[in-house]
């Protein structure tokens, strides 16, 4: 059989190179000499310097992104841990209805929700704020997160669950000491996906954040292109892409297993 496979190997290897090429190119181009950028002769980090000095400075945008991502992950983890516990281990009136409504968030386009959320956040005094943005991003994560945590709790062996509650532990102590360690893989997957969604989301801050100093990184890099009298500094854009992509690619390589798990349990958002 193996002699049949040689052309297949060549084809597959070629495809793999095509898939890797754009990322490799962006990394190389961001430090290579190029006309019309800050790095005109010789190799170096001129484009990153441009990026660092753009308007409020890349530091500010990085902080915005980190704040939004951290808040989104924390809120998503907290709400979905408790929610998953409730849906998996308790019966209460309205349980199924609440679960279905939570999943229904998936059926509604972002744009349909962002138009009223823009008005609503104004009324709540959360307009143009990183907290408001994080809460909205956490809401978008809830269907996946609550579903994931529910099946994680349901996958715990029944004996362990019953032992935890009957042993005279209150349900909260049972959760903290016995059940949280058991659902840790689920928490990592939920946290990873919440982080990636918050770090990468574009349309939500585009609609909800009007103050350019509060823009998260993707929005700031996209805005940067329209600057300087319509002449686009592609070197700085490439550097911005590298800064945006690096944490995602590293996380992906480190946590590939959890990625696959997340994708498999009903991957969301094409």
């Amino acid at each position: 059989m193996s002699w049949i496979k040689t052309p297949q190997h060549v084809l597959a290897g070629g495809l793999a190179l095509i898939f890797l090429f754009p990322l490799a190119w962006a990394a190389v181009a961001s430090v290579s000499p190029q006309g019309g950028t800050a790095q005109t002769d010789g190799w170096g980090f001129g484009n990153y310097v441009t990026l660092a000095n753009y308007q409020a400075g890349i530091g500010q945008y990085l902080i915005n992104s980190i704040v939004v991502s951290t808040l989104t992950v924390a809120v998503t983890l907290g709400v979905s841990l408790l929610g998953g516990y409730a849906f998996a281990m308790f019966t209460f009136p309205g349980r199924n209805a609440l679960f279905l409504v939570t999943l229904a968030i998936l059926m509604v386009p972002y744009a349909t929700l962002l138009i009223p959320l823009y008005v609503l956040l104004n009324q709540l005094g959360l307009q143009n704020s990183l907290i408001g943005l994080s809460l909205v991003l956490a809401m978008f994560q809830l269907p996946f997160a609550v579903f994931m945590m529910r099946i994680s709790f349901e996958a715990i062996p029944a004996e362990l669950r019953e032992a935890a509650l009957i042993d005279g532990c209150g349900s909260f102590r049972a959760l903290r000491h016995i059940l949280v360690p058991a659902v840790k893989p689920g928490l990592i997957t939920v946290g990873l996906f919440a982080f990636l969604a918050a770090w990468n989301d574009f349309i939500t801050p585009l609609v909800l954040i009007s103050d350019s100093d509060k823009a998260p990184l993707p929005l700031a890099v996209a805005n940067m292109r329209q600057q300087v009298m319509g002449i686009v500094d592609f070197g700085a854009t490439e550097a911005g892409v590298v800064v945006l992509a690096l944490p995602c690619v590293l996380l992906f390589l480190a946590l590939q297993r959890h990625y696959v798990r997340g994708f498999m349990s009903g991957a969301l958002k094409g």
Partner: protein
Amino acid sequence: MAPATTLEAPPEGAVAPPGAIRKRRKPQLAGWAYAAPTALFVLIFFIVPILLVGQMSISDWGLFAGNRGINAPENFTKVIDDRLFWPAVWFTLKYTVVTTVILLGLALGLAMLVQEASRWTGFLRTSFLVPSALGLASASLLFYALYSPQSTPLKFLGIDSFLGTPSAALWSTVALIVWRFAGFYMLLLLVGLQGISGDVYEAARLDGAGRWQTFRYVTLPLLRSSIALCTILCVTGSMLAFDQFYILTKGGPDNSTITIVQLVYNMAFFGQNNLGKAAALSILVLVALLVVNVLQFRGLRDKES
């Protein structure tokens, strides 16, 4: 979904222990207490906005002027009369069909290529999957630089302009989306492929089926539910396309690549500043999405029986 085993009725419930009554009440309260944050979130950030968008769609609601009272059904008629409405619907449909066909075809091919587990296929899987780690906006910015005449490394392809004509802009965007999502759909299909037992292939081989026949009459039918999931995700995602066109083409050239969601955004925040009209269009999008998904589910169920 598997029904949850609950602790409300413990196995020894027949011989009610002394604390049974207290115990039966408590889980309900506790259950609600744990579900309360979810309920609150869903109420404030989902239910209320849905009701509000309904109200906005039948009101004269400006971006700065705010609510100026009911004007139904003016927003809806204005949306349908908008000169960009039908072109946007048509373009979004075209884009959805093109993307779904190419993306799923390629993803299926990739899944077959990396089906067997080995070091080499492990490397291939990772290579195809890495682009999925990027945000769609980051990927779009990357391709924006990749396609620009100033910085492109793709001159050897002999393409004058990647984004200059309507069809070039469409195909360049499709290439970006295929690059970004092919690995993701490959993974979903791979899960389906690995669920097919080796015995089935063995039986096909013994019956004298060739490679093509095995693929056509064994693999494809057994993969139907995975393909269905991919189709639904891909159609939904493409119908709601925004980031890639906002960043790559800005709807150009000559408004030829404006999608529906871009039109919603433009009506609300760009030029027209008409939130009522944008709300009306976004409700039409929601309805269209629900109809398409119901049709897809029904079509798949019919095939199954």
